[in-house]
């Protein structure tokens, strides 16, 4: 008897993935998945099609669904392609150009020809009004309401579709912004207004205004899309509630999503991280690195104690080769991850020093890597993998695409091999080593920035490239255990099914420990907890929730804050000392030693309310069994040693739980191949996941 049927849909750049899970009783999950082409012009069409396909596979009707969860890159795409609303920014007089000036810096020191991202709101629609608060929220200049009303004809004439309001220090005192919103609602009913004190109530005007402008910019588009999607699903007979995946890893209602659509930008990658967290939980792995390598980028994310790391800074729509600082800053709750331009389609070339460089330029789907035979002449990582013998040209992507080895060879030789005097196999090795090193470097930086290490950590590898490159990346960062879960092709959608209903509220309140504002902090935290709870209550249907409180703290004068957990209750004066001690300990964990003699300041607080994550049943123990017979052997070049040898190729579907195969070998499946390097063994666990372990050298 089916008790609970959940469906998740993830719109990606190329494909829309749908996963459906039916639960019969405690133990039994059954899952169906579908992959359909994304329909960029009307994305809901792709989703509806995917839902139809997966329901048909499962033999269920739309009315059987008990929950539908959705994530989409639509907001991100609108920002990248600049297809959002005609947006105005009402701002403090004297500060019209905050969006244009940014932090007055270049993201590349030596390139004289860099372009900076154009602000989402052009100067003619950045409209100043007299008003000014100081840093304590005191009014230095009252809001000039007549001046604001005088802008209305301009907004009408320019057919403005969305309005952002950003005043200096409004996160301390939102009165002027709220009054402006009331006037605009009166004068221009129906035009959505985003306030910086609501969208991103934190210090730093550029980041706050940028986030607010982006929210306004995508709001009309997202509201209309979400409406169409919901209508479409209802027309199919769906009665279940529809939830949206947030970039911070939680789920929220359509109403909240429509109000703060900017919080949806990174929902796909967030789903991937939640997927990894779930796999880690199933296997009881408390320290893992989620490693998702796709066609154009690789994403790495540290997950400790089954929770992806949270962050509040993010950059979208980078214009300079994925360079930090070349995008629009967003200050919203996100899952902390590093994304770099390293994927199967990333192109290799030699720079002016004769060094191999890989990415971030990508072959994309068209023409694709040279081996696709669609006219690509630049060597992609996929070409290099092919020349190393890692793919069977006849059965790539389930045999749907026959790979052209000759084309790969020509591309690698012309662009890399000749310049270095290397034969194609070694040139291919060079390309793959460079891309593996790039990913390992990104992983190292990520760990350093989080003050974490790779000792005792496992990698969870997915995406088309993760299982192929996992071993070598693991060796480079000193990891000796890799898990390749099943369903990795639709990982994000599966992740959506595991996400809690959650909402995070962040607010700034400056206080120093020497004169801790206990009353003010307690009032703020209570207020924030109430706000987060009320958002979650709309979608939790009375489910049990948990609350987490965090203070972002630093030594007075420093610039980088550290997150310190707070007790989830009213704080007392005794707590102040223990929070301070917790800060010192956390600081020392990051930087070896605390700093003597410094007071500590708090800049902001975060409160997250989430439904309790459902329990995971422990994986069934299985006894070792011999592996299946190899389906054939292939000549494969090992990238660590350069040696070419015959590697056994196994069919993943022929492996049973407990089956062990020994590296070097390759476990092939339709969507990817798991490469088991020399010195590694691979065992299928009770969940059907591949577990690779490196023997101690």
């Amino acid at each position: 008897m089916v008790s609970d049927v959940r469906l998740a849909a993830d719109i990606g750049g190329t494909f829309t993935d749908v996963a459906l899970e039916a639960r019969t009783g405690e133990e039994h999950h059954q899952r169906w998945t579908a992959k359909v082409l994304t329909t960029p012009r009307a994305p809901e069409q792709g989703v509806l099609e995917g839902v139809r396909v997966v329901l048909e596979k499962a033999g269920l009707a739309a009315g059987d669904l008990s929950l539908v969860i959705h994530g989409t890159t639509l907001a991100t795409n609108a920002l990248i392609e600049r297809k959002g609303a005609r947006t105005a920014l009402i701002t403090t007089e004297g500060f019209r150009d905050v969006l244009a000036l940014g932090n007055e810096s270049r993201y590349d020191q030596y390139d004289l020809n860099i372009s900076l991202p154009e602000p989402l709101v052009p100067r003619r629609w950045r409209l100043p009004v007299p008003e000014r608060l100081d840093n304590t929220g005191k009014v230095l200049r009252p809001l000039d309401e007549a001046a604001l009303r005088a802008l209305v004809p301009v907004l009408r004439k320019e057919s403005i579709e969305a309005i952002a309001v950003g005043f200096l220090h409004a996160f301390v005192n939102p009165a002027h912004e709220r009054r402006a919103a009331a006037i605009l609602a009166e004068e221009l009913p129906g035009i959505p207004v985003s306030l910086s004190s609501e969208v991103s109530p934190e210090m730093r005007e550029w980041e706050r205004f940028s986030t607010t402008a982006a929210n306004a910019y995508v709001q009309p588009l997202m509201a209309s899309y979400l409406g169409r999607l919901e209508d479409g699903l209802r027309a199919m007979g769906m009665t279940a509630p529809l939830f949206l995946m947030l970039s911070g890893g939680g789920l929220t209602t359509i109403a909240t999503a429509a109000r703060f659509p900017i919080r949806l930008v990174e929902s796909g990658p967030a789903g991937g991280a939640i997927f990894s967290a779930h796999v880690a939980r199933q296997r009881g792995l408390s320290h893992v690195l989620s490693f998702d390598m796709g066609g154009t980028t690789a994403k790495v994310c540290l997950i400790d104690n089954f929770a992806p790391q949270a962050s509040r800074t993010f950059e979208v729509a980078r214009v300079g080769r994925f360079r930090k600082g070349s995008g629009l800053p967003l200050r919203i709750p996100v899952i902390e991850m590093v994304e770099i331009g390293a994927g199967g389609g990333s192109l290799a070339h030699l720079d002016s020093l004769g060094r191999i460089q890989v990415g971030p330029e990508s072959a994309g789907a068209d023409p694709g890597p040279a081996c696709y035979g669609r006219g690509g002449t630049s060597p992609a990582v996929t070409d290099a993998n092919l020349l190393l013998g890692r793919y069977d040209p006849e059965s790539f992507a389930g045999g749907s695409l026959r790979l052209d080895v000759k084309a790969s060879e020509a591309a690698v030789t012309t662009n890399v091999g000749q310049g270095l005097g290397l034969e194609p196999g070694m040139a291919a090795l060079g390309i793959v080593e460079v891309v593996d090193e790039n990913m390992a470097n990104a992983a190292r930086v990520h760990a350093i920035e989080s003050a974490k290490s790779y000792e005792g950590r496992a990698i969870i590898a997915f995406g088309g490239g993760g299982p192929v490159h996992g071993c070598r990346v693991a060796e480079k960062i000193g990891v000796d255990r890799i898990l390749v879960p099943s369903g990795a092709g639709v990982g994000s959608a599966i992740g959506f099914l595991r996400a809690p209903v959650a909402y995070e509220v962040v607010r700034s309140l400056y206080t120093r420990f020497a004169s801790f504002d206990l009353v003010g902090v307690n009032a703020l935290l209570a207020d924030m907890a109430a706000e987060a709870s009320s958002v979650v209550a709309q979608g939790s249907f009375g489910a049990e929730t948990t609350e987490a409180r965090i203070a972002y703290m630093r030594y007075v004068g420093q610039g980088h804050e550290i997150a310190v957990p707070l007790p989830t209750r009213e704080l007392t004066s005794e707590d102040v000392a223990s929070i301070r001690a917790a800060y010192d300990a956390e600081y020392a964990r990051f930087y070896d030693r605390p700093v003597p003699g410094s007071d500590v300041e708090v800049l902001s607080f975060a409160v997250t309310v989430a439904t309790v994550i459902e329990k995971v049943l422990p994986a069934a123990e299985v006894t070792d069994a011999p592996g299946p017979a190899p389906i054939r052997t292939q000549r494969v070049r090992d990238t660590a040693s350069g040696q070419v040898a015959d590697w056994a190729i196994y069919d993943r579907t022929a492996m049973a739980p407990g089956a062990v195969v020994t590296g070097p070998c390759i476990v092939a499946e339709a969507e990817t191949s798991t490469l088991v390097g020399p010195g590694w063994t691979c065992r299928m666990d009770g969940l059907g996941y591949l577990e690779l372990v490196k023997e101690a050298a």
Partner: protein
Amino acid sequence: MDAMQAINRQIQWNRLIAVVEEQAQTMIRTAFSTTVREAGDLSAGIFDLQGRMMAQAVTGTPGHVNSMAESVGHFLAKFPAHIMKPGDHYITNDPWLGTGHLHDLTVVTPAFHDGKIIGLFANTAHIIDIGGLGMGPEGRSVFEEGLYIPIVKCFDEGRANETFFDILRAGSRTPVELEGDVYSLCACNDAGARRLAEMMAEYRMDSLDDLANFIFESSLRATLSEIAKLPLGRHSAEIRSDGYEAPVTLKAAMEVKEDGIEVDFAGTSGLSTRGINVPPAYCRAYSCFGIKCVVAPEIPNNWASLLPFRMSIPEGCILNAPRPYPVSVRHVVGQLLPDLMMGCLEGFVPDRVNAEGSSALWNPPLRGGAQVSGQAAEVDDFEIITFNSGGTGARPGKDGLDGIAFPSGVRTMPVEATENVAPVIFWRKELRPDSAGPGRTRGGFGQIMEISAKNDAEFAVNAIFDRVANPPKGRQGGGNGAGGWVGLNDPNGTVLRTKGFQIVPKGRHLVLKLPGGGGMGDPRTRDRALVERDVADGLLTPEAARREYGY
């Protein structure tokens, strides 16, 4: 050498660059001075045992980078590698052994592997206060400019040199931040050293020599091949700076040869009595940077890639200040050097250089409280500097950038953050209409800033501004950018001096109009849609559009 080795050395080179980047990021996260953590006024690098820089962090600012490259040799001359021990850290702020003024601390740390010293990590950071007169041009010798730290050991085998820290704390207005910064500089070198040891273990390396030679050979070869793309010959250029007591002329003649580029600064003005003088390492740093941006921007900075750029700087000229001439604000002259270099390079490759820009940072050092007003002070003591910029020069194919730092690599602080650390109010900080030099591609726009103390109290500015009487020039038919302006918001529009300590009286605001970049090419050939856009955006007045563009 086999193919595998060749590939591994490339990987190791990449790794080394990642290691120094980690070093720089650690500094930014742990530093106390806003100049480091917010502005990014720092650099980090790894050196071989001969003091040759092997790799340098991408993060950082050019004035530090290239001068720090010279600095490590001075440390080794005083403390040879064989006497260095694990846990040692060495420090200086000597302008002639480091990066050109007392506000920059340079820390050098030996790195060990298998008990053997294998290399050195160095970093430099601009700290917020080092005592003395404070950041500004008013000193008449370096002794007035602050606490002078010769090359000394600040940590001895992991133990803090408490005598050193006592003296350091006593000499600064911001002792806690300064001490914290020194700890941070040492910690970031340690982070680099740890990561290097891991790499050496992974690749079973026992020295960096082979890798160093590979990096140096590749870099030198690549740099020379980029130089070979320039026509041989000699071109010269000249720039005028407002100076302190008198205008300053910077002159350079550049000769492109087969084995390098030589620059001779003969004809440059003599020394100033005030702190705008430039120590020679800083002159070489920004000159090299200017040339490299045009000639070989892709080649990573290291000892060998800087080798083909040779400078001849006559003694006694403002670009070769001897000790103890004052040098505190050497950037205000030094940051014009890339424009001067591009002036020379225009003779060789006119389609690869930019027009002149605002160039020297407009960073107003602001001070208030008892240090300015004595017992009449109405606000708490404060000392703050923000990093702001005018427009950059037009580029051959693109407009200049509006209010963006070049050649400096620093960032500015948010106004909200500044107002939280000091009792100041910024009343205005926005683009300055009609300031961009007209051209087929125009310069970047400057900014207007208007600043007061809280409650309109009295405060002071230690002005370090340039390009006021001598605005950024256009090239190839492009017009000049607007010159800067420094003054008060009173009805008479009182003008302040561009350099030196001045009071902003109670009730007044400081007004800064930052220069715009020069334009490039005939303005009449500019795309009319772009002129129209600037008019619609209120950046170009209709009168200026008509006058400059015939619009």
